[in-house]
């Protein structure tokens, strides 16, 4: 069974990367867009008055841009993971190949969920690394790499997997959920901004932001890479307790949503119908 699981996982990863390769032009177009967003947003940070008066100094501050990268690259990863999972699954539903995938004797969570998660993960990793690389060409990204950063990084990956599974479950039932998907992703991005000291947010905003999947992990990542503080502080933005609880809650909710979505689709007979 372990061998079969390995074969199935490898199979999905291979297929995912093969599809990514066939979409290489689209990915190449997306890559500079993400980097451009960071490079354009960087000079505007902390320049509210200058923006109003129209006298923006378009120089990049290495420290501020580095913080921006630490906020935005995880978000790109999260965004790509969720979006890739959604579009690939929808594509398979529309093509009808999803039903063939479900004819596999291997467990559906392995071939329809786990395999896709890993495939999207690798593809997304390339885009996130590419964005980081492009920004680094224009301005040195100064972060104090610390082994402690591994924990929030893993939490970001787990949260992204959880939300992508929730999206997948919803896609199996309702199919065209891209508007909901985009709205959720936008909210995740906006609320995660309260984890970094770039934008002032009201107290209620900071409180609510704990419930979103990336906030505390990005906060913890900031702590590990830019401060001398330990990441084991239990509470507050980036606190260990909310980070772990929220991350695993999203993973659990994702597994539940996918299982439920699959059951409903099979009961309704709409697994391959769009």
């Amino acid at each position: 069974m372990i061998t079969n699981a390995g074969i199935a996982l490898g199979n999905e990863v291979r297929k995912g990367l093969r599809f990514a390769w066939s979409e290489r032009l689209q990915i190449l177009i997306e890559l500079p867009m993400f980097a451009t967003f960071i490079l354009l947003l960087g000079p505007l940070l902390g320049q509210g008055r200058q923006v109003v008066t129209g006298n923006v100094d378009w120089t990049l501050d290495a420290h501020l841009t580095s913080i921006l990268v630490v906020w935005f690259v995880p978000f790109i990863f999260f965004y790509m993971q969720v979006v890739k999972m959604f579009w690939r699954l929808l594509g398979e539903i529309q093509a009808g190949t999803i039903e063939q995938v479900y004819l596999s004797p291997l467990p559906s969570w392995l071939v329809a969920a786990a395999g896709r998660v890993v495939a999207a993960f690798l593809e997304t990793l390339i885009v996130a690394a590419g964005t980081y690389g492009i920004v680094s060409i224009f301005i040195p990204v100064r972060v104090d790499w610390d082994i402690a950063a591994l924990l929030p990084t893993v939490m970001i990956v787990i949260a992204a997997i959880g939300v992508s599974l929730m999206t997948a479950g919803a896609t199996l039932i309702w199919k065209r959920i891209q508007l909901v998907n985009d709205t959720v992703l936008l909210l995740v991005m906006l609320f995660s901004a309260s984890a970094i000291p770039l934008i002032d947010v009201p107290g209620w905003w900071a409180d609510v932001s704990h419930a979103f999947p990336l906030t505390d992990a990005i906060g913890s990542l900031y702590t590990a890479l830019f401060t001398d503080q330990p990441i084991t502080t239990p509470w507050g933005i980036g606190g260990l307790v909310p980070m772990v609880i929220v991350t695993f809650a999203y993973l659990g909710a994702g597994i539940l949503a996918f299982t439920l979505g699959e059951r409903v689709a099979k009961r309704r007979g709409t697994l391959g119908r769009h």
Partner: protein
Amino acid sequence: MKHDSAIELSGLGKVYGRGKSPFTAVEPTTLSVPWGQVIGLLGPNGAGKTTIIKMIGGLVTPTWGSVRLGGHDVARQRRHAVRQIGAVLEGSRNVYWPLSAWENLMYFGRLKGRRSAEIKPRAQQLLTELSLWPRRHQPVGSFSRGMQQKVAIAAALITDPPILLLDEPTLGLDVEAARTVKDWIDHLARQEGKTVVLTTHQLEAAQELSGRIAVIKDGQIIADLPTGQLLDRYAETRYTVTVAGPLGGLDGALPAGAQVDTRLDSTRITLPSDNPDDLHKLLAHVQWHEARLLSVNQARPNLEEVFIRLINDDQTAGQVKERM
């Protein structure tokens, strides 16, 4: 130990929707298909054929009953049950268009838990036999519809499953491609001894390929017999009379319900029943009008006629079944 039946449906039924407007797609159905049999599931659109096929494959959850494949329950022993089947599903691409034929076969082989080395020889054999070998590395999306369907069949067969579910495998194919697919199904059934569940609207193909026919109407199997027996059961001997030229004065001499097929230089008249008096009267009129008689034949009804009769006859429901 090999189980007696390849496929066993026990009280299998499906209701879609809940609340005020539930729709019964398949009434509780019990059916057993022995190994090596080709069973044609025939019925008009919406009769429940595809739902049955998908319930057999575990793609639709039944409301009632169970499916066993080679003795394995699809719901409880899914891994063993699904290993028995390959499927070409209706209205689906079945295979990935951006991938090549070779990549598709390797993908679907591995999806079923086989290693690449195990499936390579089978992939080569299938692609060669289906005349796809020279184009094996081209994306399937660039293939004609017929070639794509061949890849879908090859993908369904990559692990050499003993049971094949073929839902409208010739749908949308041109005559030549449909013939190739049909020949291949025939080969699978006769040469390789596969158990095949076939749905198709091409009744001529169904008659040719299937050893047994089950006709479904409104989710209920209204006839289930070996093909020969089904035809015999409805084998009303009818007469066809062919005369040279147009119908002319014979028009008024035809009994009610006679079918007239006018061709370029002849006219074929099919009498509505096997009543010899009607035939004698018609022949007398042919002689009277000095029409040139070309032939008189006994016509055995084909599956299409039987099918239409069964579908249009409300009294038939539940009558034309035999324990198989």
